[in-house]
């Protein structure tokens, strides 16, 4: 995907900037963007290490098994081809972290689950059905409390910063169901790897 999207972005915006004489802005943004990526990585380094460590502890307790059992019906529906209990555990932990709004904890767990699914994937350069569904679920951003937005609203002096929680639930659930539905249909009509 990025082999197509990335050059399109670069070619369109660089040639547009050259023709419209917007080069100074472009030059600045190139350096700013690399800096931004490094800054983000540095701040991610701390939280990702912390959460990877904490979640490693969790994965060795029976706590994760209990959570996985709780999510079993959902897992069965979303990932009918996955049988490995280790992957089930990793996916459940990722989902719980997402729901609780702990994005930084969800990422290392999600990447671990991707790693484990890749081991069972037969075509190593192509997403399997389960991996595709897993990414769609992760991009749907199901969370109980949208903390970032509430913080922004609070800082702007809103009279009720939390009033958006209910509409957010409605929107996020319908969006997730729609995304999952589209993914299911696309999986059915394209022959993918069944792992």
């Amino acid at each position, binding site marked *: 995907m*990025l082999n197509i999207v990335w050059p399109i*972005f*670069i070619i369109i*915006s660089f040639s*547009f*900037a050259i023709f419209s004489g917007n080069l100074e802005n*472009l030059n600045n943004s*190139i350096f700013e*963007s690399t800096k*931004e*990526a*490094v800054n983000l*990585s540095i701040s991610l*380094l701390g939280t*990702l*290490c912390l959460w*990877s*460590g*904490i979640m*490693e502890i*969790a994965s*060795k*307790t029976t*706590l994760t098994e209990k959570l996985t059992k709780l999510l079993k019906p959902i897992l069965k529906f979303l990932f009918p081809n996955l049988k490995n209990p280790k992957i089930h555990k990793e996916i459940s932990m990722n989902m719980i972290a997402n729901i609780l709004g702990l994005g930084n904890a969800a*990422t*290392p767990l999600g*990447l671990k689950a*991707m790693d484990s699914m890749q081991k069972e994937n037969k*075509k190593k*350069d*192509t*997403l399997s059905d389960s*991996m*595709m569904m897993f*990414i*769609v679920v*992760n991009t749907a951003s199901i969370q109980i*409390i*949208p903390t970032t*937005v509430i913080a*922004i*609203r609070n800082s*702007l*002096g809103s009279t*009720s*910063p*939390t009033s*958006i*929680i209910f*509409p*957010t639930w*409605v*929107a*996020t659930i319908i*969006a997730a169901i*729609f*995304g999952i539905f*589209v993914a299911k249909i*696309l999986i059915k009509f*394209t022959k993918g790897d069944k792992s």
Partner: protein
Amino acid sequence: MQIINFISIIAMPMIILLIVIYGVGEKNKVFDTFLEGAREGIKTTISILPTLIGLFVAIGALRSSGVLDLIINIAGPVLNIINFPSELMPLAVLRPISGSGSIAVATDIMKNCGVDSLIGKIASTIMGSTETTLYTIAVYTSCVKIKKTRYVLVASLAADIAGIVVSTVTCRILS
């Protein structure tokens, strides 16, 4: 408000506490296990850095070159036909491709139109109910070196569009 504040403040400490208590209770070597996991975190961060640099440069260029403004100007009138507020157009375009960019734009919209206005509420709901799709897909696929992503972008963008439409409709109905 107070209850919600309390829940969002206590969530992280409670989870860490619960996990550590479980670990100690089941007689695991908790700190050794922690270090094992934390080391993995370093690997993860380093492995996603090249993806981030490539992506950020391309998206930064899209914004600074003026291409994004052009898209917004063209798509604005089209979306006006279906009654989608034109103030929200930049957010809808930016949301799937840039996390920091969409936070900046959403904050701007809330400031200009009023946090508690309908537009401000819709902007907040869009931010809360959608994710930086392109970033998530890029990080999740590049960490396992996958090149062919099949239709994952289509499905995720479909979810984003649904999220934006439902946010607009729900806020309209509730106000």
